[in-house]
Structure formats: structure tokens, C-alpha cells
């Protein structure tokens, strides 16, 4: 019988990389704490929607959650910096350095005063765009209707290229794309494939413009009640499994890419020049929307990002 039990809920299906990663972490933690710490995993929104799971970790009805930054803006405006398009570079090693450096640490720290303990940032793929209309250059966005999640930053990202941003619930998106309520959407390739959006879309640009970053969050009371040795074990396990999650994600993305291509969708990978065009138009309005919401704290995090980006030799 475990001494410390954590109910950990998340949004993905049990077949997806995040859950597989969590299973690995759970096994490592169990082994290295001699069975004293047990993670009970609840995939597929079993414990509620995104908001309920985060509230649950705050109030202690569950002990932890692994949640995409995109769902956390309401709880902590600082973390929305990760929603800004092109914030993470194409280079995976440099992205890793960003997560591990002062920028990543500032994001983790910002959760403390919001009643949560954030111990790690996990990569969970990059978003690409699909549409029923041609996506030739950056100008072809003009006048198209794209579905976005409820987020002011993502709305500004599409406004930057002259596209209309429409909020449609995830569950209704397939039908909305099929009937043409919206023209296109943005999601990681494996989501586009699992949700079969490619069945109702014509063009795919593998743009990797937006990073999907997961925050590993715990309830402070539970976390602080653990012996320090156990806390170290848990943090190390999450960091140790992180490359495996990323590799698994890349693997399913590659599979998804082939599946989408074979289904007859026009696919192309965003070139360097065009990438720069997209960034020039999308980044500034999204960043401004972020700074407006996240205030002085956001400004400090943005400065930490710029300093790191300079060190890593990233374009700004």
C-alpha cells in the first residue's frame, strides 16, 4: 500500500504520447520510492475538463495534472508566453535549452503564487495549419476563417496574417470543417490524424509555428508533504522521461504525416524564407497581446526570453 497517492488527470487519450510518458514516470517513481509514491493516472478528461483539472490541483481534489500551457492562461497569464507563435525555435536542442534555462525557470516559478507547484515543462509537439482553401504563401491567409482555442494571443496570431479567428469547441471542429463553418485549423500532426481532420481538408503546411508545451503541476500541500528525497525522485523522473516523450511524439507525427499525405492532402513543409515571413506577421501582435495581459511579470519573462534567445543565436 502506497503512503503517498497522487491522482493525476490529463486531457489526452490513453493511446497518446503524454499518457505513455506518464506511465513511464509512474513506474520509475514507484520503483525508486520503494512503492511509497503511487501515481494514479486519469486520461481523457476523466477528472473533468482542463479548467476543472487545474482547479482540482489547486484545491487538492486531485494531486497533479499535466496540462498544455494553452489552457493555463486564465490561471497564470505569465505562462501564455508559450502560446506566442515561433517562441520555440525549430532546433529541438535549443528548445530544450530554453526550457531548462532561466526562461523556463521563470515560467515554473510564476506558478508558486497561483497556488500550484510547477516542476517541469514537457514538449508535446508543434502545431501545423490545414485548410480547405489553398495555403500558398503568407498572403493566402487573408479572408480565411481559422478555428482557434479560447485565447487572445492565438486570435491575434491569426489577425496578424489577416485571417479571421473563430472559436469553435474541439468536439464540433470536425463537422465545422466538413460543412465549411471554418476553413482551417491549427493542431499538431498527430491530432490532425487522430481526429481525421485531413478527411475534410485540402492543404497542409507543416509549419511548426506554435509549440505545444505541457506544464507538470502539483498541489502544493501534497507536494510539500512529501519527503524531500521523494520530491527529487519525481522531478528527476519527469526530466528523464522527457526525451522519450518527445521522441514518441516525433514518431507519431511522422506516421501522421504519411497518413495525411496518402489521403491525398496537398502537403508541404514551410521553407526558411516563408517561415521568416510568417514570423514577421504573427509574432509581434501575439507578443503585444501577451504583454498587455501579463503585465510587468510578463515583461520580465519576455526579457528573460530575449536574453536567452540572443545567447542561443535565435532570430528576433
Amino acid at each position: 500500500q502506497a503512503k503517498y497517492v497522487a491522482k493525476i488527470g490529463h486531457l489526452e487519450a490513453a493511446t497518446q504520447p503524454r499518457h505513455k510518458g506518464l506511465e513511464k514516470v509512474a513506474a520509475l517513481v514507484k520503483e525508486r520510492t520503494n512503492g511509497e509514491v503511487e501515481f494514479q493516472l486519469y486520461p481523457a478528461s476523466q477528472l473533468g475538463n482542463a479548467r476543472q483539472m487545474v482547479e482540482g490541483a489547486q484545491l487538492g481534489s486531485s494531486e497533479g495534472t499535466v496540462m498544455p500551457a494553452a489552457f493555463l492562461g486564465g490561471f497564470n497569464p505569465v505562462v501564455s508566453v508559450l502560446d506566442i507563435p515561433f517562441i520555440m525555435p525549430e532546433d529541438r536542442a535549443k528548445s530544450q535549452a530554453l526550457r531548462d534555462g532561466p526562461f523556463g525557470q521563470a515560467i515554473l516559478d510564476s506558478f508558486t503564487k497561483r497556488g500550484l507547484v510547477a516542476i517541469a515543462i514537457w514538449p508535446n509537439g508543434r502545431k501545423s495549419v490545414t485548410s480547405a482553401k489553398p495555403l500558398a504563401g503568407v498572403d493566402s491567409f487573408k479572408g480565411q476563417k481559422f478555428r482557434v482555442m479560447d485565447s487572445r494571443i492565438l486570435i491575434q496570431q491569426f489577425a496578424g496574417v489577416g485571417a479571421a479567428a473563430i472559436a469553435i469547441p474541439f468536439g464540433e471542429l470536425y463537422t465545422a470543417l466538413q460543412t465549411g463553418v471554418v476553413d482551417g485549423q491549427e493542431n499538431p500532426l498527430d491530432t490532425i490524424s487522430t481526429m481525421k481532420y485531413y478527411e475534410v481538408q485540402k492543404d497542409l503546411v507543416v509549419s511548426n509555428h506554435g509549440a505545444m508545451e505541457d506544464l507538470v503541476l502539483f498541489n502544493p500541500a501534497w507536494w510539500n508533504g512529501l519527503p524531500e528525497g521523494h520530491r527529487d525522485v519525481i522531478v528527476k523522473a519527469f526530466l528523464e522521461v522527457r526525451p522519450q516523450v518527445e521522441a514518441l511524439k516525433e514518431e507519431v507525427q511522422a506516421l501522421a504525416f504519411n497518413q495525411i499525405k496518402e489521403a491525398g492532402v496537398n502537403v508541404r513543409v514551410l521553407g526558411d524564407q516563408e517561415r521568416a515571413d510568417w514570423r514577421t506577421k504573427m509574432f509581434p501582435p501575439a507578443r503585444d497581446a501577451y504583454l498587455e495581459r501579463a503585465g510587468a511579470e510578463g515583461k520580465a519573462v519576455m526579457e528573460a526570453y530575449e536574453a536567452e534567445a540572443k545567447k542561443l543565436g535565435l532570430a528576433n
Partner: protein
Amino acid sequence: MLILLCILAALLLVLGFEMLLVMGVPSILARLTEFPNLPDIVIAQKMVGGVNVGTLLAIPFFIFAADLMAHGTIAERLMNLVKRNLGHRSGGIGHTTVVSCMAFGSVCGSAPATVAALGRFLHPELVRAGYKERFSLGLIAASAECALLIPPSITLLVYAWLTGTSVAALFAGGLAVGVVLALAFMLYVAFVTRRAGIEPAPRASAAERFEAVKASLLALGMPVIILGGIYSGFFTATEAAAVAVAYALLVEMVIYRQLGWRDVMHVAEQSALTIVAIFILLAVGSLLAYFVTLARLPDQLLMLLNDWQVNWVVFLLIINVVLLIAGMFIDPNSIMVILLPAIFPVATALGIDPIHFGLVVCLNICIGMITPPFGLDLFVTSSALRKPVETVIAGIWPFVLTNIAVLLVISYVPSISTALPRLLGY
């Protein structure tokens, strides 16, 4: 303890406690006895969360639109049209109910919304044609189920997401299964029509029919706008429900001048009371589903299945029984997210086709909407048509049995679900 709580719930139910207490009181006792360490404010969170769901919005809008049309004249005009053109056929209005619920439900995607939108029109006509009240209520509640099977279907989309199955293949299979179910209902309607000796109305003259068409031109705008608007991509199903409200207001207030501002406020208030009665049960239901999740019942089921070493025939039977029981108490989507991650791997390991399994699960979930005591369709029928829920339940049994018969056929004849998807190359 679980058994004691079930007995308590049954006791509260038969004594005439409000349903929200029947479900709410045992849930709170479960929290106190089974999960003593859980902070109790989570109860408030789960209850608000149960109504704060975007995909449920079609229900209030369709309730309001249907009430407006029933208080005005659109409903009457549309039903006159149906009667004059189909009333002379044996079982005409009964079959019309099945087909119109199927057609409407398929696009709007929500069984309760279908009941709300069509029930107020169809029920008086069924009774006037000579069908028993409880048969009419049961027929409406049951026919609306096809909404979940015939594409587009959010239920099948959720299944696809949880299991990685092709949406298009599931949709094709859903169409086949939905049609089989509708045919089974129509067969039952034909049987009841004959047994009860319900005579068709005399054939309307050509002039009468023409007059009915003329009188209902604006009323016909309603289905045209809703179905056309959804299919051509002007709006989503939920938005279509709100557009239906706007169209009803436009036609009844401005063109026919049947409703004044005071009438509209009165109708809005009445619709709101219906919405309250339904949604508070969704709120308490989400609490109930949460405690079922925390009890980790699926894990226990899984251990049982492993111990028994069952084959696919027995497995499907067990799943059917489990889902039927779960469906009596928990709402459809919760059942799916709670149970599927545990049982889907078992199904594939036994060699069951994922498409076939998806349709078995989906049909089970449809049945869950109409099995007492907790069946959302039952509550919507009762509340939207202002009929005692006992009458609805008394009328639903033949349809539940018809459903179970269809379920067994679908379970043990996989090709019904998979033939069409295979034909389309999935």
C-alpha cells in the same frame, strides 16, 4: 456501502423526492463516507461544470424555439402539412415521427435537443391520431436516439478520438446501424397501429393539400434554414438552434403577428423553467459521474475480465450488460471516457473490429439515454412536454426492448456495422 446508497436512492425516488435530491443526496453521502479526504468544495465545482459545456447549448435554444412555435402558429401549420399529405397512410404519423426525428437528429446531433425541437409538434398529433399518450411519448424519446448514430455524431467522434479509429468509417457504420434501428422502430409502430386498430385519416383533396402547402410556406422556412444552414456551412448545429429562435420570433412576431412582446416573455419564462429542470440534473449527474470515476470501477471490471478469460462473444455480452447498467445512472459521454480507456484494449486483443466495437458502444450509449431512472431523453420529454416522467417511462419499455434486440443483432452480426465502411475502403 455502495449498495446502501443505491437502496437509499431508490427509496427517495419512489417516495416522490425531486430527482435532483434523488441523485444529489446519495452523491454527497458517498463523498462523506467513501472519499473523506476530498475537499467538499469540489462538489460545487463539478455541479457548475456539468452545465458549463458548450456542446449542450443546442438544448436550451431548441426548447425555446419549439415553445415559441407551439405558442404561435408555425407548429400547427407544419403539422397540418404533414397530416394532409401523409395522414391517409396506415401509421403515417407514427412513421413520420421516426423519420423526422432521424433526419432532424442526424444533423443537430443531440438526442435531447431533437426531443425538445420536435416533441412539441409531434406529440399532440400522435395522440389525436389515436395512439396512447405513453406510446407517443416513448416513440418520440426513442426515435431521437438516432441523432447519436447517424452522422455527424459527437459520440462517434469522441470514440474515434479515444481509440484512434477512422471517423469516416465510424460515420458510415453509424449510418447503417441508425437505419437498422429506425426500421426496427417503424416495424414496432406498424405492429401497434394494427393492434390498436388505428384508422388512417380520410385522404385530403388536392385543394386541401395545396392549401396546406401554401399556408406552411413560411413555416417550412424553419427546417430549410436549419438543415440548409448547417449543411452549407453557414453555422454549426448549436448556432442553428439559436437561429431557429430568431426565425421563430421573426415569423411569429413580425409576419404572422401571433406573438407580442408579453407573449414572448411568457414563453421565455416557461422555456427557462424547462431548461432549469433538465440542466440541474446534468449538474448533479456530473457529480455522480465524478464519484464513479474516483471509485475506479473500470479497473475492477478489467480484473474480472482477465480472471474469466472470456471469448469475444461473452465479452460483448458482458460489455452490453455493463453499459446498459451504467447507462441507467450516468450520462453518455462520461460513460465513454470512464470506461473506454480500460476496455478498448481488451476488445482489440480479442480480435473485435474497432469499428464494430464503436457502434456497439455507441448504440449502448443511445439506449442509456432512454433507460430509467437516469435517462436524459426521458427527462427532456417529460419536462418539455409537461408530462409526468412515470408516463414517459411506462411508454419507453417496448422501445428499450426493441433497442436491446437490435443491440444483440448488431453485436453478433459484425458485418452490419462494418460492411458499409469496408465498401468505402476503410
